[in-house]
């Protein structure tokens, strides 16, 4: 299969009653041993570069540079940045292995912080080096099977 429709995920804010939508996509990432490790990404068209928290990358044994980039930090958080790539398959598609550029954010050896903000925890799928390989469409047309619509992913 060269295309995939993934239902958008909704949550209801108790405070306002608003229904908030998000798009997530499950990937398999190749680790240092050549095995595939699962990781869910938030699809974010406002993000320039795909990113993974460096401690999560370490946990999954993904290959990434040892040294952070000198002179480059992640603007919203001030975290250090390691610039690398991920080798990735989209779960549910045809098994194509993509190579996406990826920034690994933060200190991979930092102790776990259970109160870490969501913005520092979520792996984001950005545009650079991705949208020239897969087409990503957000389609909010409701159906009985997908009442909030779909994230549609197609191989280019």
């Amino acid at each position, binding site marked *: 299969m060269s295309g995939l429709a993934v239902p958008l*995920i909704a949550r209801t804010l108790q405070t306002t009653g608003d229904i908030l939508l998000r798009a997530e996509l499950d990937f*398999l990432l190749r680790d240092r041993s050549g095995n595939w490790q*699962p990781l869910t990404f938030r699809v974010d068209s406002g993000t320039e570069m795909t990113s993974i928290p460096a401690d999560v990358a370490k946990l999954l044994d993904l290959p990434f540079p040892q040294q952070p980039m000198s002179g480059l930090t992640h603007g919203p958080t001030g975290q250090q940045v390691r610039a690398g790539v991920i080798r990735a398959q989209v779960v549910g598609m045809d098994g194509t292995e993509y190579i996406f550029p990826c920034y690994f954010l933060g200190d991979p050896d930092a102790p776990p912080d259970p109160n870490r903000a*969501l*913005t520092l925890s979520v792996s984001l799928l950005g545009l650079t080096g991705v949208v020239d390989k897969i087409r990503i469409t957000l389609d909010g047309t409701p159906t009985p099977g997908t009442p909030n619509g779909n994230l549609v992913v197609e191989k280019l």
Partner: protein
Amino acid sequence: MVSEFIDLMAPRWNGKGERPRGLLPVPPEVEAAIEKEEARLAREQNIVMTPEARQRAINAWTLEYYYDGHYVACRDTMQGVEVLAVGLEEIGPLLREKSQEELLTIRVTVG
């Protein structure tokens, strides 16, 4: 940049603090929210959710109820969502002991 709206009225933020493992029990709050959502869809979209869509919503909202903002390793089943490990310190050892075949059935995500 991912948005983060913290719902202080949501159960997790009210400090119940339950962190069950295994097949998660569906909280009454989630059952009520699903019923409310079904009513909204019928009223506004003239849509009746399929059983699969309903179960998917139950799984997502139950995971969010207990683990909003936390890393979990989990599996979706038609009986519900099964949590295998919580937090990076638990997930690491779990992944290392699983075979490649088993890893393909697991999601590592933020609840």
